[in-house]
């Protein structure tokens, strides 16, 4: 009689009545599918790895290219320091460059302080023109404390204005002090933190190289970006003093500030003409210097970034397509190989949806693993470039998120067809498959 009672509850014994139960069983189902997917994947490591190459390459390209682009952006932000909105800079090297410079650029002669002074004479319409020289990784000390990795700028009196580094307390150096090389120094806020944690810096002495300098001012705290060098870890000294300490071998960067409200672009054109004369170039010679403002730099960079992005998108789309076809292929092979397994699962009571889910899940896991490998490789390249080539690369999190989301999509899209095939197998036929 118990059999009769059984039969009356036919089909309802399964937890399929309530919405909550159905949801819970679906969640449970997914956990089991995950386990099954991993099990079957690790049974075919090599095959899985090979077919995932497309996805790996696609994701790797996106991540590493984004890291490089971000690195350039960061380095640009650092390089420009706080070049004011109406300021442009003339320098020996191009502002943004990859790899070794061309021979023509290599042959360029240094810009000199004298040329900066000459430009002052021939470009009176500019508001002010200064010269500056930089060095990095220096050590500054007091009798008690030492600050290392400090950027040292040697500048003329225009240095603070042209770089948007206003003096917070004390004063900057004047024109004659800058040229004659007075033994004075203006400290960045970060250097003050390290050297004068509990003492008044202004009027105190600090040691730079073999010289003792008097602190005459402090630059307002800049609060650097978290990636690049800290703009507060900076000291500024008269350019004459800089050359006394470090020699005259460095090319001078010339900063030009336009009158406020005037046309910066036109001033740049005028400056180019004037500076060509200063440099003694004949009409048929190319400029042997580069010039950039915040804006032109931004444009150069944006063009570059656009090119990188287009290239990246093309490579990425192509390899993801290849990757998707790889996923579909491996899943079709899996379905064919596991026909009997599918038959068995159906015989044991797996509904179509369960089989479908299982194989879609496998496809998604597969392409996600490819995605993770690609992300890992991208991070590796980013790290290598960061430490090997000192480009402050950074992998944007959104790119990681997007890549993994796209991988999930690929798994879904390219997994559906094989999974549907699996779910439609006739169990009686599938079980007979040898």
């Amino acid at each position, binding site marked *: 009689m118990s059999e009769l009672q059984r*039969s009356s509850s036919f089909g309802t014994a*399964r937890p399929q009545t309530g919405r909550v139960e159905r949801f819970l069983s679906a969640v449970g189902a997914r956990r*089991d599918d995950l386990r099954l997917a991993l099990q079957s994947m690790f*049974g075919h490591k090599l095959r899985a790895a090979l077919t995932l190459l497309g996805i790996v390459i696609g994701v790797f390209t996106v991540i590493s290219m984004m890291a490089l682009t971000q690195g350039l952006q960061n380095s640009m932000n650092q390089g420009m320091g706080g070049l004011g909105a109406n300021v442009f800079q003339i320098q020996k090297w191009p502002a943004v460059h990859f790899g070794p410079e061309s021979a023509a650029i290599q042959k360029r002669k240094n810009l000199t302080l004298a040329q900066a002074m000459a430009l002052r004479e021939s470009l009176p319409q500019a508001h002010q023109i200064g010269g500056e020289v930089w060095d990095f990784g220096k050590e500054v000390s007091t009798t008690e404390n030492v600050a290392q990795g400090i950027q040292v700028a040697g500048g003329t009196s225009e240095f603070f204005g042209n770089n948007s580094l206003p003096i917070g307390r004390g004063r900057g150096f004047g024109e004659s002090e800058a040229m004659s090389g007075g033994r004075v120094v203006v400290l960045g806020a970060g250097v003050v933190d390290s050297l004068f944690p509990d003492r008044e810096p202004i009027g105190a002495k600090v040691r730079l190289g073999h010289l003792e300098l008097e602190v005459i001012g402090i630059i307002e705290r800049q609060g650097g970006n978290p990636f690049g060098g800290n703009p507060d870890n900076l000291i500024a000294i008269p350019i004459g003093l800089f050359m006394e300490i470090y020699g005259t071998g460095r090319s001078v960067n010339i900063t030009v500030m336009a009158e406020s409200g005037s046309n910066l672009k036109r001033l740049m054109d005028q400056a180019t003409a004037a500076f060509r004369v200063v440099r003694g170039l004949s009409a048929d010679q190319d400029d042997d210097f580069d010039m950039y403002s915040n804006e032109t730099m931004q444009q150069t960079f944006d063009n570059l970034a656009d090119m990188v992005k287009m290239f990246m998108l093309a490579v990425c789309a192509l390899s993801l397509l290849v990757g998707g076809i790889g996923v579909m292929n491996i899943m079709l092979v899996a379905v064919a190989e596991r026909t009997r*397994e599918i038959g068995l699962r159906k*015989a044991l009571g797996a*509904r179509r*949806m369960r089989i479908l889910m299982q194989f879609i899940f496998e496809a998604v896991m597969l392409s996600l693993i490819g995605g993770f490998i690609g992300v890992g490789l991208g991070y590796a390249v980013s790290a290598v470039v960061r430490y090997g080539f000192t480009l402050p690369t950074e992998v944007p999190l959104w790119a990681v998120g997007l890549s993994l989301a796209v991988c999930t999509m690929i798994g879904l899209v390219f997994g559906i067809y094989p999974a549907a095939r699996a779910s439609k197998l*006739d169990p009686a036929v599938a079980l007979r498959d040898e």
Partner: protein
Amino acid sequence: MALIELQHITKTYDLGLSKVHALRDIDFNIEKGEFVAIVGQSGSGKSTLMNILGCLDVPTTGAYLLGGRDVSTLADDELADVRNLEIGFVFQSFQLLPRASALENVELPLIYRGVSPRERREKAKAALDRVQLGDRTHHKPTELSGGQRQRVAIARALVTDPSLLLADEPTGNLDSATGEDIIRLFLELHAAGNTIVLVTHEPKLAARCPRAVRVVDGLVVADGEGQRVAFENQRDIDAAAAAALAAQQQMASGLSQREPGTGAHHG
């Protein structure tokens, strides 16, 4: 009411050009608690019948009442549910998942029933204990002998506590001693109240079952006490073999009379 009622079941495979009548008018009942052998020669329709009994397939015509419910017209997913809840399968080739442990294999039908992992584990362990494999729960199929594999498969069939246990040639891939163990296990399960249908082409096996149904060309030609049906079956097999031998001898002698020159080569 009988657990199983087969009412004029036919199964025709349509191969386009030709039709194979695998089952023709099968009509018998199986009561709860019975142990029935389905015996017959290769190609007689045993597996086709078992697929229908196991709801892996539906008949072309006729009705199949399982526990009073007509399951011959159900859709795929409904059949899946019936299989999950009512049927336990044992196959000739074991059909275990090679990468899963014995325990995981036995848990499989419970996964599809939506049983919680903890309960699954307990039930699967109990089922393995019941086939004396409680100490092999974490072995993979490749680490088990053929007989042990088949016992894992039987545990998997038992774990859902099905109303019907179906076994298609369960000893077909086993040596005779191991096959004997498996048959004993089935007899024990029968004694414990399980309903079992065993498909075999061996009259000797059928003889050990309380009841046997003999199928020839898709028709039931005998249904009764296992020993008697098996005896008849064996007698027919022997007679057929003797007839075949006689025909062969006759043909051989006929050939040698007509073509004495080449007869020696055939001999």
